[in-house]
């Protein structure tokens, strides 16, 4: 039940996401399809933010990949704990690897390794927590799509601020000092400028590319 605070913390976000998706024309069937098949909140918020009718599919898929590129590193750090699991369990473990499930599984596996039980992910512990997170996410985003219209104007009650607030919390979790965050400043300036000058969702790839460029330059000097 270590997953409970995580699940509680993302219920408001899930409601907002479901509501915003419904406003962009998602039906109560399409919302659980999106959040249940993709199951990566940051990219779902980004996709809904960029959603137009008809959707700019290539842009949305590219942004999805970029937002979730952190999973590549997470999967790499997870790999050594998955080595002794049954092979057929690995695809499911990876499918459910959201930020929260990864953090839970990793800390538990490291605890087990320290206790001398070898580097191994506990399958019941991980799947229990991850499936709980999964169900909470899909159910509450769907609930958001259904009750959203009842909530009224999201902007007037400030609920739209939940979106940047969640991202700010995620960034806070990634904070490794001002030096490591220098690329973020480059991204923010580039994305903000692009947003003001270029219509559409191009500010995300432009901002990310400028940040990575800055990261490449700083890494070279280091």
């Amino acid at each position, binding site marked *: 039940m270590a997953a409970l605070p995580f699940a509680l*913390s*993302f219920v408001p976000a899930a409601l907002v996401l479901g509501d915003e998706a419904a406003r962009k024309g998602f039906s109560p*069937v*399409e919302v659980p*399809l*999106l959040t249940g*098949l*993709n199951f990566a909140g940051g*990219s779902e918020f*980004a*996709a809904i*933010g960029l959603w137009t009718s008809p*959707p700019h*599919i290539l842009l949305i898929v590219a942004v*999805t*990949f*970029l*937002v*979730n*590129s*952190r*999973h590549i*590193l*997470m*999967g*790499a750090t997870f790999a050594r704990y998955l080595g002794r699991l049954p092979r057929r369990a690995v695809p499911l473990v*990876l499918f459910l690897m959201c930020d929260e499930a990864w953090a839970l599984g990793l800390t538990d596996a490291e605890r087990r390794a320290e206790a001398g039980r070898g580097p191994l992910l506990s399958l019941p512990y991980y799947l229990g927590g991850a499936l709980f997170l999964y169900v909470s996410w899909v159910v509450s985003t769907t609930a958001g799509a259904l009750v959203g219209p009842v909530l009224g104007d999201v902007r007037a009650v*400030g609920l739209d*601020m*939940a*979106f940047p*607030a*969640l*991202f*700010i*919390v*995620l*960034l806070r979790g*990634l904070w490794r000092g001002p030096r490591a965050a220098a*690329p*973020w400043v480059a*991204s*923010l300036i580039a*994305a*903000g*400028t692009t*947003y*003001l000058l270029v219509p559409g969702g191009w*500010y*995300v*790839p*432009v*901002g*990310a590319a400028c940040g*990575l460029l*800055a*990261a*490449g330059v*700083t*890494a070279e000097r280091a």
Partner: protein
Amino acid sequence: MLHAQTLLTIVLMLAATYSTRGLGYVALRNRRLSPRARALLHAAPGCVLISVIAPFFVTSSPAGLLALGATVAASIRLPMLPTVLIGVAAAAVLRAVLP
């Protein structure tokens, strides 16, 4: 209830997301990354996240900017739920008070 374009986008998003989840495990499991590649992988998530919310920072509404400032300040010490609540409350109050 189901639109072909929406469904196609969702399925492609599934493919994109699942590939990021599998890639690290499959490709990087027995390999050492160059320091530069590591630095880029470390920086990528933050750069993408901040780019997505950049429009909120270039608003001309003082209430929006102040609410963002309050959210950033709250995030330094508080966990996710209180931070989000403070951000939402600050936006609601400031928009009601400021023009």
